[in-house]
């Protein structure tokens, strides 16, 4: 943890004084402009769909089965479309898509506590006083050009990672209930388009009068935000948030669950150009009666994920869309007295698909009972470095925080090159 502070020491003094006057509270984030230029290596992916499984998902009951061991639990392994790779029977449909999927079964985590684990898995950094590190979605929004009218980073069924020192403009756009209309994206009920537009014109007039008396840069940022909002409200791309045109067949394929609808919306958003979609789902903290809970999770996740991979593959979009599933840690191999599993950071699995990764790859493995990495341990920050690598973002690029402290986008991770062909 000391590296950040030492960098701070060298840079802060030399930079204090010259900088703060102009920007920090204006939302202009001038600091990021100063940051070192990124790499020009070609990206393998343009979009990311991140499944955030909150609570700590069991690795043994999902993608790292331990058949015949006392830690196996209730589920048997099944064969997949990749010979020699087995996953839990909870995912029969995903198993058929395995040739698009890569598994990293040797993540060497360190934080067995929800708060710290979540923080590290979302940001690659450990918690640190007076700093809020951005998550992958915020990094993507900051580093990549927006495509189309929709925001670069959208979070479904829950909150996206926080932007921290990357600023408000890189916060996730929030979709509370996928498929449900977001009233904030249209004029209020009872205000017709024509009337709403007249209001906007009158507002513009009023604000330009104000700004001509007070010609100040601060107001420009507020106006830009309003312009962006209006552009979004008027964009045909908003249809991507709606599921009205999805067929009954499709609804059945994805499953009639919030997660199924979330996956459908995620697919539509990516097709519309959204850079990063985070789909949130909770309920993985299975201290008690883990197996019925996992059974239910499988029933919800399997059809949705498999259909998503299948549809993206069919439309050709899978090659440029990286799917990744993260959770704060795995769960204990040992089954506790309440038929549950407790927190276990020692080793767990990360699921990835598409986005230029080599389908069917399995990186590393855990020991025979699923306690520790057996070979090729992958550090948590390596996951983030790999996602950045796929997006063509230099994970070591330094960004200056508002306090002029240079920080790498990712906490010294190395891309896991075995994933990429």
């Amino acid at each position, binding site marked *: *943890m*000391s590296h950040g*502070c030492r960098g701070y*020491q060298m840079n*802060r*003094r030399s930079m204090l004084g010259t900088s*703060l*006057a*102009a920007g920090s*509270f*204006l*939302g202009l984030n001038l600091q990021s402009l100063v940051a070192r230029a990124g790499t020009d290596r070609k990206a393998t992916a343009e979009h990311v769909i991140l499944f955030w499984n909150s609570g700590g998902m069991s690795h043994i009951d999902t993608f790292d089965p331990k058949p015949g061991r006392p830690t196996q639990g209730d589920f048997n392994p099944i064969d997949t479309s990749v010979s020699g790779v087995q996953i839990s029977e909870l995912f029969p449909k995903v198993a058929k898509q395995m040739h698009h999927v890569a598994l990293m079964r040797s993540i060497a985590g360190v934080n067995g506590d929800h708060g710290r684990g979540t923080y590290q898995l979302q940001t690659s950094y450990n*918690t640190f*006083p*007076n*700093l809020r590190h951005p998550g992958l979605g915020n990094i993507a929004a900051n580093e990549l050009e927006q495509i189309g009218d929709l925001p670069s980073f959208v979070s479904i069924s829950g*909150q996206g990672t*926080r932007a921290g020192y990357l600023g*408000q*403009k890189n*916060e996730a*756009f*929030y979709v*509370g*209930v996928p498929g*449900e*209309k*977001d009233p*904030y*994206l249209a004029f*209020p009920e009872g*205000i017709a388009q024509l*009337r709403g537009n*007249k*209001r906007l014109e*009158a*507002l513009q007039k*009023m*604000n330009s*009068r*104000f700004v001509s008396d*007070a*010609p*100040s*840069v*601060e*107001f420009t*940022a*507020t106006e*830009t*935000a*309003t312009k*962006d*909002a*209006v552009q*979004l*409200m008027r964009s045909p791309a908003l249809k991507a948030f709606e599921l009205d045109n999805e067929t009954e067949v499709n609804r059945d394929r994805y499953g009639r669950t919030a997660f199924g609808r979330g996956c459908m919306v995620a697919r539509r958003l990516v097709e519309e150009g959204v850079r990063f979609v985070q789909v949130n789902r909770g309920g993985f903290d299975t201290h*008690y*009666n883990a197996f019925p809970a996992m059974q239910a999770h499988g029933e919800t996740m399997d059809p949705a994920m498999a259909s998503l991979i299948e549809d993206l593959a069919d439309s050709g979009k899978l090659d440029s869309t990286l799917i990744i599933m993260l959770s704060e840690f795995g769960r204990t191999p040992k089954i506790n007295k309440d038929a549950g599993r407790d927190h276990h950071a020692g080793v767990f699995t990360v699921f990835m698909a598409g986005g230029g990764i080599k389908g069917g790859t399995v990186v590393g493995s855990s020991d025979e009972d699923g306690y520790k990495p057996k070979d090729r341990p992958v550090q948590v920050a390596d996951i983030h470095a790999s996602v950045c690598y796929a997006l063509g973002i230099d994970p070591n690029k330094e960004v200056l925080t508002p*306090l002029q402290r240079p920080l790498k986008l990712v906490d010294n991770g190395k891309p896991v090159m075995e994933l990429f062909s």
Partner: protein
Amino acid sequence: MAQVHGWLFRIAFVCLACLSAAPQASAATPLDVILNEENASKKIITAPTIDDLSFLRRLSVDMIGRIPTLDEIKEYEAWPAAERRGMLVDKLLKADGFADRWTVFMADLLRIRTNSDGGAAEMAFVHKSVKEGMPYDVLCQQLITAVGKAGKIPEVGFVLNDNADPMALAGTAAQVFMGVRIACAQCHDHPFDVWTREQFYGMAAYFGKTQRREIDFTKSVYAIETDGTRVKWPPEGLAPEAERKAMIPAFPFDLKLDAAAPQQEVRLVALRKAQADELARIESGKSASLDELLTAASTKVQSNNFGKTEQFDVAGEAKKAARDLKVDKDLYNQSQLRSELARYITHPRNRYFSRAFVNRVWADLMGRGIVEPIDDFSDNNPPSHDKTLNYLADEFVAGGYDLRNIIKLVVMSDAYQRGHLYEVELQQRKASEEAFAANPVRRMLAETMFDSVVAAGHLFAQKHAAGDNLKTIKEIVQVPVDLEGKPAAGSILTQLQGQGTGAAMGAAMGGGAMAAATGGGGSYDLESAIEVDFNAVLAMAKKDEPKVEQMMVSEEDQSARMLAEEQGRRKKYIDQVVERQIDDNPVFASAMRMASPAPPAHFLRVFGQPARDQLGDHRDHSPSMRQALMMLNGKMTHEASRVGKLEPIYPLLVGKKADLDAAVKLAYREILTREPSGDELADAKSVIAEAATPVDGMADLRWVLFNSHEFRFVP
């Protein structure tokens, strides 16, 4: 004025104004004299003093967290011009809204989260302390030393906020109360500061015996004091375990307690002795310890009259304060180590303590701290105005650590009452703003903006006649079913039918449950939230119950609990479409009393309310598209704009007494605290003329005013 020459003209105007600025407000206060001295060598432009109505708006926003109402404007304008600013300050310091607004300030400082263990009770307690004027040093002593059950002993919320972890608490105590960032020294000697790792451990050792204890059965949470310490030296891994010894607590600053007491301490001691004497006289025969007296004392001491320094009437003020006293005899078990730490932290000779607090108050009122970031005092980050900061800090101490006292000192200064220099070239303007010779761009706080829309839109009470807004809505609700598949009694469905609206779910939240804004009636209501009833929370804390619950629980009780949980998990839910008629006549509660921090997508969070889970996580006032969408399309702005029959503006729009000019002027006064110009009046009338009816047109106009820059930025 002609466009081309406009800018030059404004510069000329400003310079003329600065020549004539001084006499417009009160004569320079001692604070201004010191500030001006410190600015003497700087090449800055001093902005003119703002006009009376701008002052009313600015001060209302800062003191009571909303813009003034029509009645308040009228009252103010009726006061004699030479005295109205001072009268307003005195009035707002006593207003109910003051405690609400400054509880938000305190909650940011202390990082109070109503959904954390004991958080709601802590918030209610802090609200009470602000309301009653509890001295800040006493408040801090109570927070630092408290032991007991979350919710029952409101103050323990502070220690539990950091899970009673000694390391976290050391960093928090240093940064929150003293503005010193020593948390970095947890892992290594502070790289650019003087803090060593050993000093950090010395600080942490004060919290070494503190622990969080959760009782499995009742889920009650306690902060307790144990015998052994958890903080050992050398740090883990640097020495064999057997050689690590209990760390001896050590306060990192030398407070020079052997030296003669500085002036501010002498004044403080005199003040408190006078208060104690007065109390003893009133309660003669009874013996009260000094601590009790201090705890209960409500000091309203005026150390300073504006425009001239003078003798302050300590005894007189103390008598007045003592009359309000109600000694709370409830003394809690306190931690000896933490009591010692609290004494050091709040010691009148600890300038870190007083400077850190007044700097935050100053930053809140002036838009920028004398030290920035506001909680990063260090040799490498010197204050921009050292003497001004010391003056404020010393007055704060001498005046009995009274929040109102220090606020009054600031808001009565010329510095606070200065306008903006929007017209001036950026670099010059920034230099002036950093010298506090001009007011920087300052957007209202999220809570203030929310309450201002609600107040100006007449949404604190129903404004439509009953039955005017009947509509039928459909909702999908999840209903728990019993074994036969019928909705179970007490389900969400029955609650909805019984209560009409989800907003009624309020009630007190002792344990600190927080309703997500996304729950209840609609998934996308990001503007309403559950209100915390401070009084009810504190009343609950007062209820009698065993001080410490049984820590051990019988086997039978354990299995009963597990069975109950098991049944809870097995509960089945079905979706039901509920159709019901509602009279959509919405009323909004003050944002100041909402469970906070609000959920991340909520209006308040989108406008910068901090998550309060980390040190140094201050309010972000930068604009975003989400903010724009909230204001353009949100229900609150929409309802605030719509005209209700019960509003004063309605008869000016409909019927025989309709008077469009008067209606527009009223709208401007209510929303922007000023009269419209001739051009604006004409524009407004054409907006109204284009609408289907004058009532619709007024809604359009008000929507525009609410969304304007002028509304959200402090004048």
